[in-house]
């Protein structure tokens, strides 16, 4: 088939895109390694899109020959959608169809998952078994599990749990803390780092006793993941290692991809670098894109050196020096903002003292503003004590709205270096939050403090506690436990208030409490029967026993009904006939189980006024904050059911078992893990609220107005993991005593460069007011104050959407929305996990498995033909 011709220039014209010189050069570059430095707001996404399109359309690279990795799911979705839209235009112009579903486009994790099973990396083209992936929370629960943890510290040669905790924490955080939680969290971090550095525990030679113990524990951890010959579990770090091993062990792996494009290269880790170079061995077409000044993820094992030293490392690994192109024109921010952050980043010395002429930064790039709007766009508060600064800035935000310069409070973001300090909400966050509360403006800060502290979580957990009662652990000296108990009691008080205001809720809670009590009473009666009859619980349940069970005096009508309904009788009969009878234990559990699960309870509670109002706010888009939190809660509840079973049986609820597992173990873990595990920002942010987020969460985002909530962050000694890895691998890098300082510089740089129209900085008078560099800027750099700024010149904020065009599925968007827009909102948009109803996940699961069946059958047919 022949297609009509077109040119990329023609396509640019159709899309109204006029690339600048370096953008054009980057898009049209096709041969050899490419090093793209991309400053904030420099049109990187567009360049990636058009560059990929150029390869596909004008250089006949097949989609499956392209590897394009992004940092977040969201970014990959955006690229996918954008690419489909652009390719659609090509199809319309030329008649040539494109299908990019086989392109390796996604986060590094998702691509690693498909690489492992990719037939192109295996001899004979067979498909390998995919490992089961544990996310960070599952990994934590696995290691935290008392039994497994005991195995681990035993493997490490510790004599008891306490000495293990003390030794591990002493070694990794330089302080003896007898806490399993802390020890587990630290070990997890170290294990992941080992995996990411591709360290083989067998080959480690060290005389350090503590390190030796940890390496043995790591070895044991890895061994424990192999479930049987075919199945193994991996965590996120081992997944990447697994992908690398797959690629390395296959001789032709360097030729599978003709082009690799890696976005956010500054936040890649050691194993990823190895993987990328390995995949690029054959073609040498590796394009890395990133900005070292925006490197943020060292705490997850990322090494900014991958980017800073890319030119040399590429030469070493592939034998070719990459071409470097700087995307250095900023299209996002007004000129004063760009001037400020480019000034900011050079206020420290980045020179490498050991190597003359070299820097710990790509120091010779020059970021320029495209905007010629030189009107003031960076303002500072009056220099005052904290409360007054909070109040002044909150009032300023409030005043912005009636001017029309922002359309919604969600266009004004507050960015903080962190939202928490030692488990409690950060002072600055709390201060600004109170200032907004005083003005009646809601904020959206789901990650401030622990998730379990948000109003919605407290209400739901409080009502759960009213129904199931709370676990009791008597006298304890543990501050953490006391705090957690106080949290539970606080939630129950909150629930009491809600119950007081809603008669029906009161009645409902009473009914559910009765359900629990009835089930427990039935359970005890049935146990007594078994004892009296001298049966063993493990014995088979015989049809004739139905009568004995059902005739226990005082057994509840519900249990009686469970035991005598025709369905049950039939099942027992068949089971007995087939000689596969249920055990007595099974029948007792079944008879005394509640009709509802924790998730059912959640959805039913949502029907009461307090929660109903939250849904109403979301239905017309007024305020999405509460419903986002409710959605998250449903996910946590579902995860609990996954791990501990769906059904609430009386035996599970007896002796406080359920409440201990649910509250004292599961919710307590959520309570302590807090924000660090969940960094993904919701975007767009809920309407009607001022978003409060960490600078990390703001990565890749932009806002018309940005307020930096704090301009201070303390510097810490180098992370022990870094010290260990450098020692083990004999690696060099940024001086250990400067790492924290460099990281803080980059973090603030990211924060400052998120602002489009206006950047607001607080000037506090008291302790921890500002870093030295910010202090210097406040004193010597020309800035306007909030009081003096003339809002007349402030541009009107544009809608957040970057309209690359989105894809909508006929079935899972259009049909679903048409069936019920509200159902679509809840389950599709906010990701509620349904309890009973069929879901999209259900459909996808069936479809995907049928697809695999078809593949299998097609493969079988081909084999048979041969």
């Amino acid at each position, binding site marked *: 088939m022949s297609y009509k011709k077109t040119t990329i220039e023609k396509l640019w014209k159709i899309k109204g895109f006029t690339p600048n010189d370096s953008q054009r050069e980057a898009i049209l570059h096709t041969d050899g390694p490419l090093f793209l430095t991309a400053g904030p707001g420099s049109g990187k996404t567009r360049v990636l899109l058009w560059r990929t399109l150029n390869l596909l359309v004008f250089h006949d690279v097949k989609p499956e020959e392209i590897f394009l990795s992004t940092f977040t*799911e969201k970014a990959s979705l955006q690229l996918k959608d954008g690419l*489909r*839209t652009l390719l659609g235009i090509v199809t319309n112009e030329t008649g040539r169809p494109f299908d990019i579903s086989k392109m390796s486009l996604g986060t590094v994790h*998702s691509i690693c998952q498909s690489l492992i099973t990719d037939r192109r990396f295996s001899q004979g083209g067979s498909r390998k078994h*995919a490992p*089961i992936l544990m996310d960070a929370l599952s990994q934590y629960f696995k290691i935290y599990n*008392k039994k497994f943890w005991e195995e681990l510290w035993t493997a490490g040669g510790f004599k008891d749990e306490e000495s293990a905790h003390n030794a591990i924490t002493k070694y990794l955080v330089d302080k003896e803390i007898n806490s399993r939680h802390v020890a587990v969290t630290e070990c997890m971090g170290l294990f992941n780092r080992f995996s990411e550095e591709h360290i083989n525990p067998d080959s480690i030679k060290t005389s350090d006793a503590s390190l030796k113990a940890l390496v043995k524990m790591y070895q044991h951890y890895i061994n424990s993941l192999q479930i049987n010959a075919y199945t193994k579990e991996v965590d996120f770090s081992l997944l990447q290692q697994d992908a690398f091993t797959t690629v390395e062990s296959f001789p032709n792996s360097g030729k599978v991809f003709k082009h690799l494009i890696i976005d956010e290269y500054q936040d890649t880790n050691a194993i990823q670098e190895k993987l990328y170079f390995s995949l690029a061995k054959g073609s040498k077409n590796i394009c890395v894109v990133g900005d070292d000044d925006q490197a943020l993820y060292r705490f997850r094992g990322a090494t900014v050196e991958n980017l800073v030293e890319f030119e040399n490392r590429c030469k070493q690994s592939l034998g070719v020096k990459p071409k470097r192109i700087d995307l250095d024109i900023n299209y996002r921010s007004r000129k004063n903002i760009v001037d400020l952050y480019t000034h900011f980043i050079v206020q420290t010395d980045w020179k490498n003292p050991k190597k003359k002429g070299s820097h710990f930064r790509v120091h010779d790039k020059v970021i320029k503003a495209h905007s010629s709007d030189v009107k003031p766009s960076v303002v500072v508060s009056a220099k005052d004590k904290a409360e007054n600064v909070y109040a002044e800035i909150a009032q300023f935000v409030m005043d912005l709205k009636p001017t029309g310069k922002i359309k919604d409070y969600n266009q004004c973001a507050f960015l903080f270096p962190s939202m928490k300090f030692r488990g409690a909400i950060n002072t600055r966050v709390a201060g600004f939050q109170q200032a907004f509360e005083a003005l009646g403006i809601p904020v959206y800060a789901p990650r401030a403090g622990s998730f379990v502290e948000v109003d919605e979580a407290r209400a739901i957990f409080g009502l759960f506690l009213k129904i199931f009662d709370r676990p009791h*652990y008597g006298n304890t000296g543990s501050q953490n436990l006391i705090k957690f108990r106080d949290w539970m009691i606080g939630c129950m008080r909150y629930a009491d208030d809600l119950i007081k205001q809603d008669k029906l809720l009161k009645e409902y809670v009473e009914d559910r409490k009765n359900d629990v009590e009835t089930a427990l009473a039935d359970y005890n009666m049935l146990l007594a029967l078994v004892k009296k009859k001298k049966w063993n619980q493990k014995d088979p349940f015989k049809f004739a026993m139905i009568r004995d069970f059902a005739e226990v005096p005082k057994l509840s009508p519900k249990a009686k009904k469970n035991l005598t309904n025709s369905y049950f009788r039939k*099942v027992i009969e*068949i089971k007995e006939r087939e000689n596969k009878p249920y055990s007595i234990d099974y029948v007792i559990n079944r008879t005394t*189980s509640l*009709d509802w*699960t924790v998730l*059912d309870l959640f*959805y039913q509670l949502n029907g009461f006024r307090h929660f*109903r109002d939250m849904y109403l706010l*979301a*239905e*017309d*888009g007024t305020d999405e904050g509460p419903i986002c939190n409710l959605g998250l809660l449903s996910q946590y509840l579902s*995860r609990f059911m996954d*791990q501990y*079973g*769906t*059904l609430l049986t009386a*035996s599970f609820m007896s002796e406080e*078992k359920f409440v*201990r597992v649910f509250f*004292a*173990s599961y919710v307590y873990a959520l309570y302590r893990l807090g924000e660090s595990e969940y960094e993904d920002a919701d975007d767009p942010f809920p309407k009607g609220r001022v978003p409060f987020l960490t600078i990390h969460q703001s990565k890749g985002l932009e806002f018309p107005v940005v307020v930096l909530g704090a301009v201070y962050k303390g510097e810490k000694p180098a992370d022990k993991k870094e010290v260990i890895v450098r020692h083990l691998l004999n690696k060099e890098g940024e001086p250990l005593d400067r790492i924290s300082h460099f990281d803080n510089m980059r973090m603030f740089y990211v924060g400052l460069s998120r602002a489009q129209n206006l950047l607001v900085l607080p000037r506090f008078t008291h302790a921890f007011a500002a870093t030295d560099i910010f202090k210097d800027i406040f004193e010597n750099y020309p800035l306007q104050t909030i009081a003096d700024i003339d809002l007349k010149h402030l541009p009107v904020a544009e809608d957040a959407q970057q*309209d*690359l*065009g*989105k*894809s*909508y599925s*006929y079935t899972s*968007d259009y*049909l679903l929305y*048409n069936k*019920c*827009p*509200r159902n679509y*909102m*809840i389950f599709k948009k906010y*990701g*509620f996990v349904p309890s*009973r*109803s*069929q879901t999209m*996940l*259900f*459909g996808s699961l*069936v*479809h995907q498995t*049928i697809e695999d*069946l*078809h593949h*299998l059958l097609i493969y079988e047919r081909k*084999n048979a033909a041969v």
Partner: protein
Amino acid sequence: MMTDQEIEKRLEEIFAQNYELLKMEGGHALTEAGQKDALNQVLYYYRKLKEIATKVTDTEVKLTLPDQKTPEGRNFTIEGIVDIVREEDEVWMYDIKTHDPFYVMANKHLYEKQLNVYAYIWENLRGNPLDHTAVISTVIPDALKEAESIGDTARVQKELTKWEPVIEIPYNEDNVKDTVHDFALVVDNIEKHCFTPPPVKVLDEKIYGTNSKFATRICRNCDARFSCGSYREYATKLQKGGTMNFKKYYEDYGTDAEQEEFINASINLDKINITPELPQ
């Protein structure tokens, strides 16, 4: 060649892996009952439609209609997925659905709209031949499900023969334009955050061609019904008796059989009989 048993065993493995992957990707989970139901749909698809399954030439073909614009100026792309069977003399396009066959039969016009758009993309944009389009409904009929759950093999066989999951959809290109326009309106509504439920009047009406009301068929299968204004109004005002039957409205876990099935699939003694520890 693999035997049917081997294929089914392999299917169960693939299913388990897919579930883990999808759960990880979406952060969602299914109840054990849901997982079991989904697995059964796949297994019965193979048992019933082996003829078609073994002839599929292109699976999960992604069809896209790109570069569309909504009335309010948003760019969007329509996506759909189908399976194709190319034989020497004819080409079939199958859309596999987890909707039940009665509903599909009754609402054929809806499926017609959808498959017409897909057929249009396949034939006109891609330039491929096409002779028939059909929906395959993977929902297992209740009678078959029941036979399966009590393990009555003879009845399973009988019900399997009775089951008709393939529903041919007439192929007619005319309404593609209207469908795409309607699609565009939905895109605008989604982006504008319009998510109010259908009014109570709709809930009280029978779904076209079926014998059940919207409230029974759609809402009762929706976990979010308790917090829904429309359903609440329906359940408390329109039901017989006139006054609010609060308990009945809440204590609604489906029929006895449904509840039994739920318990059957969910009970997991290993998980229940754990000995929890006190937190340290």
